[in-house]
């Protein structure tokens, strides 16, 4: 295992893990940010194309959230689906009741999930 150059432990310690973050973490992620710089050349901020790209981003982020609610990873699995959805609804209620405060909504939603994890946990 330690002889494999493509493995994290190839050269344990030293500078290798830092180098691995740059080559296998930073670059494959940053390439998309870099690409945007060339794509926006000549595009005006009021252009119609930009409105489309904003809509794509919005739909994509909504999808990220929906996936976390429907199929969560990690400790969120200990809370049943109805409780995850219910906590989201409570977050919305708090957001509207407290004059559209995102902070209040987040606090309430998270508190509801913790309560559900304590009193209605998924038994594995």
């Amino acid at each position, binding site marked *: 295992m330690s002889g494999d150059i493509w493995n994290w432990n190839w050269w344990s310690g030293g500078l290798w893990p830092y180098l691995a973050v740059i080559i296998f*973490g930073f670059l494959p992620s940053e390439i998309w*940010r870099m690409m945007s710089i060339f794509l926006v050349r000549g595009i005006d901020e009021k252009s119609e194309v930009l409105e489309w790209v904003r809509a794509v981003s919005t739909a994509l982020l*909504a999808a990220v*959230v929906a996936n976390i609610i429907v199929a969560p990873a990690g400790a969120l699995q200990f809370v049943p689906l109805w409780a995850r959805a219910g906590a989201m609804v409570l977050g919305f209620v708090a957001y509207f009741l407290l004059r559209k405060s*995102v902070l209040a909504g987040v606090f309430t939603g998270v508190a509801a999930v*913790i309560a559900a994890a304590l009193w209605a946990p998924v038994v594995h």
Partner: protein
Amino acid sequence: MPARNGMRIALQGPMYFLGLTFLGIGGLAQQADMPLGVVLLTTVLIWAGPAQVIFIGSIINGLSLPAIALSISLSSVRLLPMCVSLLPWLRGRKPSTLLAVFSTHQIAVTAWVESIRRLPDMPASERLAWFMGFTQTLFVGALAATGIGYLLAGALPKELAAGLLFVTPVYFTLALFRNARDAIDWAALALGFVLAPVLRSFLSPGFDLLFVGLIGGTAAWLIKRSLRTRSLKNSGVGR
């Protein structure tokens, strides 16, 4: 002062929401036996929570580094439409590539969701300073949280850990909801929510998000266009 104003907005919530996510990332790195300096470097350089979770999680599972790079790249495709829609607001009077590289590096979901509606309402001269004040504050908070999470790892009961993982979905949902103003925003938001659970069973992970974004976003844009043509016709201007 726009930079200080950006900092103030970050301190009103976003920095804490992001920090709670990075507590988890620090904790995960500690479980992976990763040196603290390495996980702090992932926060500074990768600067995208999901990609960092993949990086650290894959190392725990013993995946090969090229395979890790591939799944990180797939997960970070989401950064492309976010950067394309935000960057034109950050160019300022003297656009330079170096400045563009530095500005786009700050862009991740939290920075996008807070800036995309605020920047257009600001005077052009104040946008970049506001954005830097905002994102640099996020960086400080996220770095501190990564370190704290690393030191506290394992001490967190799973009920609290579940709550921490819920910060991201509830925050992003409310922020997207708050941002929505026109038909196109509501349509994109609703389509993303509905299409994601449907399409995730058909498509491989990573690609499903991209497809939902493209399909939902394009449909929302077409809905908005057809609404506009109709209202132009009704008012008699379109003839």
